[in-house]
């Protein structure tokens, strides 16, 4: 009984492969991703063609339940690649899952025609085929999310690397412009970068500019103080600049002790102070 039903689906797929493919592609052309130009119609055709072929192969074995079995190995791999590549291209979850679910709708129509005279069989076949494609749909969704997570992780890494430059502006003067939120991972990276730069450039002045830091709470303040004190251990004079009126108010309200640290309202004043401490003078050229 079971084998007969399965064979029914398998045979139908093989017999009507051409028609199903055409109908399926037609169903997919409505997705917004295609209209947005994220993917060409040709690619959709290729992907659909390939998927239908490996699906027919897998179903021919008579297994419609367990998609972890070896005959579904190729399908799993294909869907994983498909979802990850679509995630990278900027498909929405719905657009990605539509690939599978539009096939389901298409095939169900064909099944209805085929089993029109056997309503009892039709019912069973429809349920089993739906379950299979639902599982595959979930799989696409899962790998899609995984692809997205990989992208996020990568971007985080890139941001961390980008966001902590240490610039030597003059002999013995380093500037650390901090932009964005300072979490503990970033604070650690800033500290390491800064200390290593102090040693390699033999700098004795460090200006840390927090103009681009939107919020300074107790944690952030402590991280800044830690970094500046570590720099001090290497013999550098540290100057904190870019303290806006809002930040200065927050710092005082929170009761954070900044008295050990030289502070200036803006980078310009900090730089002037650093020049002064190094006994350097900026002057206008004569003539």
């Amino acid at each position: 009984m079971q084998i007969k039903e399965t064979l029914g689906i398998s045979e139908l797929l093989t017999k009507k492969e051409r028609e199903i493919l055409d109908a399926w592609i037609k169903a997919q052309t409505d997705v917004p991703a295609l209209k947005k130009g994220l993917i060409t119609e040709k690619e959709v055709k290729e992907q659909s063609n390939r998927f239908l072929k490996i699906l027919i192969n897998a179903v021919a074995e008579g297994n419609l339940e367990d998609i972890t079995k070896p005959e579904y190995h190729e399908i799993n791999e294909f869907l994983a690649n498909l979802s990850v590549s679509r995630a990278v291209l900027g498909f929405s979850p719905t657009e990605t899952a539509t690939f599978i679910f539009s096939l389901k709708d298409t095939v169900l129509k064909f099944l209805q025609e085929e089993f029109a005279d056997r309503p009892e069989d039709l019912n069973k076949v429809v349920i089993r085929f739906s379950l299979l494609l639902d599982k595959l749909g979930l799989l696409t969704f899962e790998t899609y999310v995984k692809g997205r997570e990989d992208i996020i992780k990568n971007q985080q890494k890139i941001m961390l690397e980008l966001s902590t430059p240490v610039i030597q502006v003059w002999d013995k003067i380093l500037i650390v412009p901090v932009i964005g939120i300072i979490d503990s991972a970033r604070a650690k990276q800033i500290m390491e970068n800064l200390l290593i730069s102090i040693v390699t450039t033999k700098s004795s002045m460090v200006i840390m500019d927090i103009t681009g830091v939107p919020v300074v709470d107790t944690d952030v303040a402590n991280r800044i103080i830690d970094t500046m004190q570590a720099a001090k251990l290497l013999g550098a004079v540290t100057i904190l600049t870019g303290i806006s009126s809002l930040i200065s108010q927050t710092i005082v309200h929170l009761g954070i002790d900044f008295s050990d640290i030289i502070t200036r309202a803006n980078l310009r004043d900090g730089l002037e102070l650093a020049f002064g401490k190094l006994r350097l003078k900026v002057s206008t050229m004569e003539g």
Partner: protein
Amino acid sequence: MQMVPILKIGNTLIISLQVKLHDKIVINVQEDILQKIYETRAEGLIIDVSTLEVIDSFMGKILSDTAAMARIMGTETVLVGIQPEIAITLQEMGLKLKGVHTTLNLEEGMSLLQNMRKAHDGEA
């Protein structure tokens, strides 16, 4: 028994701590330093830790104590050549080296002491 030589150049005493010392020896070194300051009436003390790979909390405390003691005797202490990793560790341990000046290397330490001496003379 490990010996740590204390060198004297002009009015400055220089010690180089090169390997991790046993706690007991660290205390001996501290006594030696203070004795030497008393004998020579040095104005500056430079402790070089550039080859030291670890500074533990005990060592940190002794260093900061020594500086405080030396200051009472009229001597300024400069700790030179702290490695970045050590600076990070000290910071993470929350160890504050109070009353200790720090510079990147021995040369800058010398010039810092010189400047302080000049400023001091200027006041007087």
